[in-house]
């Protein structure tokens, strides 16, 4: 059941009505938990058991950990939780990747342990990376005594399985969500209007921009050998818009759904394509993941407290794992390494310049709006190179795509791309950046729209609904981040 389906709207109406009618906190939470599990079961009813089993495991482990006074025992419980959660994630997501890599390695080394690539027949449970990180943050927070373990299982299960953010985030911290379960969620008309506004904006992002650009991206990235630099550059720009609109659109719809039900979910994006550095990009892109990596990986590794070289190593390592989190493919690992290297380079550049007295003039220049926009352009270019790594289907394709993206091969004719198709892509990209820029200047479109007066809200809503009605493609692909 996808957010951009009529089935979801019907499901949501029933959930809202049920949550509104049920009197107490507990019945309401049990109802929401059952609804969330049903939502997940629409994809795969068997894998609901995995979420429940994972939740039972962490619920028990966290209680034992919370009750234990001995640091050694607490650490042992933490290790058990980490190995359980990461073990599940590894088995479902990375086992075939590991086996495939081992097979390639033995071929490269001239060994013959396997004749064909070994393969385990497992389905990747949708959203496993998201809910695993969510449960991990809970047990780690309990270990750190930042959080008391939850004593009511339905409440804990609702935290893990809350349907708006279950399959593609944002990754909600227990410290943010569990306190919201202390009382019955209040459903009020204002929240419905605000939630609807977020949901509509997310829907426009997904069906108008992401889905309409997806076909062109698929065409060029599917057979890069057929296309010259111009289509490759256009497709990469289109992919930048597609992935942002797809993922942030999902987040907006998740936030909208949760808001209508009286819950708060954290912000996941903040106009990332207007970042003036890669560091800033990661403060604006998939914020719930980057802050998670910071709090549960970078800081425990020592962060920037253990010397200069260790800081760079930590940055590289964190982003490498961040890349791997996205999927079991070497191109993701490469993308993670690239992002880590960019973060390290940027840190080196920023620290060196700030320390130098001779470059005081340059520091003043850096504060000017013109330099900021120049930095935004440079960052955008580096991010686009990153998207080439991220989207390429194989290393062979990557080589071709990077060559065509970085080294311009002129206006060579590309077959199978029509003028209208290219114009449409350009119109959509320009339209997106116009809206993105307006939103950036306004400090967010959804909050501004929700605050707007009756007439302005109605006018914008009519535009949004019209765009959805008129521009939804016949086949809307699944959200990109579902595969992660």
């Amino acid at each position, binding site marked *: 059941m996808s957010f951009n389906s009529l089935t979801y709207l019907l499901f949501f109406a029933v959930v809202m009505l049920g949550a509104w009618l049920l009197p107490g906190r507990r019945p309401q939470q049990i109802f929401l938990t059952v609804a969330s599990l049903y939502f997940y079961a629409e994809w795969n009813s068997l894998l609901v058991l995995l979420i429940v089993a994972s939740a039972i495991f962490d619920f028990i482990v966290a209680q034992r950990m919370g009750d234990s006074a001995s640091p050694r025992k607490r650490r042992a419980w933490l290790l058990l939780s980490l190995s359980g959660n990461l073990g599940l994630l590894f088995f479902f997501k990375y086992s075939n990747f590991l086996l495939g890599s081992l097979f390639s390695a033995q071929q490269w080394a001239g060994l013959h342990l396997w004749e064909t690539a070994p393969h385990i027949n497992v389905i990747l449970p949708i959203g496993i990376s998201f809910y695993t990180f969510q449960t991990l943050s809970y047990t780690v927070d309990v270990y750190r005594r930042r959080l008391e373990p939850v004593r009511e299982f339905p409440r804990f299960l609702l935290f893990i399985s809350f349907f708006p953010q279950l399959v593609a985030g944002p990754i909600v911290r227990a410290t943010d969500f569990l306190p919201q379960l202390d009382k019955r969620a209040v459903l009020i008309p204002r929240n419905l*209007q605000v939630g*609807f506004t977020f949901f509509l904006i997310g829907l426009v992002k997904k069906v108008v921009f992401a889905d309409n650009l997806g076909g062109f991206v698929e065409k060029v990235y599917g057979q890069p050998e*057929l296309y010259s630099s111009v289509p490759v550059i256009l497709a990469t720009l289109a992919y930048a818009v597609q992935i942002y609109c797809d993922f942030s659109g999902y987040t907006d719809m998740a936030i909208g759904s949760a808001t209508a039900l009286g819950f708060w979910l954290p912000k996941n994006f903040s106009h990332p394509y207007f970042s003036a550095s890669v560091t800033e990009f990661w*403060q604006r892109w998939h914020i719930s993941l980057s802050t998670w990596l910071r709090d549960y990986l970078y800081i425990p590794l020592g962060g*920037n407290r253990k010397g200069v070289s260790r800081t760079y190593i930590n940055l590289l390592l964190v982003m490498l794992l961040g890349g791997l989190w996205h999927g079991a493919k070497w191109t993701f690992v490469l993308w993670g390494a690239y992002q880590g290297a960019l973060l390290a380079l940027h*840190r080196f550049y920023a620290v060196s310049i*700030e320390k130098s007295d001779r470059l005081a003039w340059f520091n003043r220049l850096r504060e000017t709006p013109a330099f900021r926009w120049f930095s935004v352009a440079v960052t955008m270019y580096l991010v686009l190179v990153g998207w080439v790594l991220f989207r390429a289907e194989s290393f062979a394709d990557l080589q071709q795509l990077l060559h065509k993206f970085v080294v311009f091969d002129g206006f060579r004719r590309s077959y199978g791309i029509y003028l209208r198709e290219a114009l449409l892509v350009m119109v959509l990209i320009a339209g997106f950046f116009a809206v993105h820029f307006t939103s950036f200047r306004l400090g967010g479109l959804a909050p501004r729209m929700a605050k707007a007066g009756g007439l302005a*809200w109605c006018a914008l809503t009519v535009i949004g609904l019209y765009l959805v009605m*008129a521009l939804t493609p016949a086949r809307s692909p699944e959200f990109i981040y579902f595969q992660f």
Partner: protein
Amino acid sequence: MFRNCYQIIAMSVEDHVIEAPAMSWRGVFGRLVFCTAVAFGLYAATSALLLTPYIHDGSDAGRVLGVYEAYPRIAASADRARELVLFWGSSMIREGVDCDLLEASDPRLAAYNLSVSGDIPYRRLVELPLVKELRPDRVVIGVSYPELFETRAPFEDQIAVLPPSAYARMPTEAQALLEPRFRKIAGRSSWERFWWKRKFLFSAVFWKLGVPDRSNPIPAGFVENLKTPHVYTKSVRRVELEKFLATRGGQYAPYTSGGEMTASAGASARSLALLVSELENQGTQVVLVNMPLHPLLNDAIPPERRAALCAAIKLLASPRVRVLDCQDAIATECFTDLVHLNAAGRAAFTGMMAGEMHPQPASVAAATPAKSRHEL
């Protein structure tokens, strides 16, 4: 700002709380219903004023409708003293046959070019009831590798553009050939068709603005043009065609590779057999023409693939069904691209068709730069 690589983004629950004006449930639902109704009205207006005219006048799908609706017109206008000839096929027939030229070269003929871009016999089954009513004297069907090797279903738009009643009229044997997806599209309700039209919005806007959809835009009146529905005016240079084939490793599916292993196994091939037998049963002469291809493409087609195609067509031959192989009957300079003929090629191919129907007038024969053709 750049001091720490991972600065904490100042975010709190408070930041996220939106100050929206307070209102009642009635107010919210009232607004939502109102906005949805206005947006729906706008879409309905767009559909009526932009999408429907575009589909009917400016799209390839509209041509399917134009051809379907042409049968009663042909029946009303046909002078039955003349021999009624229909040409069926894809854009190869569309570009290859000039019915005005054919009629001028042989006044005994009343010819109609009913080609549809990207057409395959599988889609053409829907015209069986109409052709049975019309009872033409002769139907010339242009076939090539797509018609016999391709396993794809017809384009969604070409199915959806016709009303469900068109499919309901199909004979049982033809309906039995339809695969589930085809049936599903064909059986769509008016409500589903109303929403389906939205897929043309971008194209319709560009059409209205006069932005061509390709290097050879659809000309005005194309949809209902049953004599000279030609679209291509620009030719691709030989060097570009060579490059095109080279970028694909010398392959151009379904001509050189792909599709069913045996040409007569696919739904399209079975549909062709059904079309031919139905026409034959009603006493219509059928001419199956293996359409001319550019010599560059002919060189890239493996001999065994060509032999399979010829064998599959030959299987359909009978006293009432003639089979012609024109695959390498036209010279290089007569093509706009690898598969479509230009004006010179059209004149040549039309002359050939005139010659196949009746003894060829000397003027047409002289204008024919044809290489070779033979009966299979």
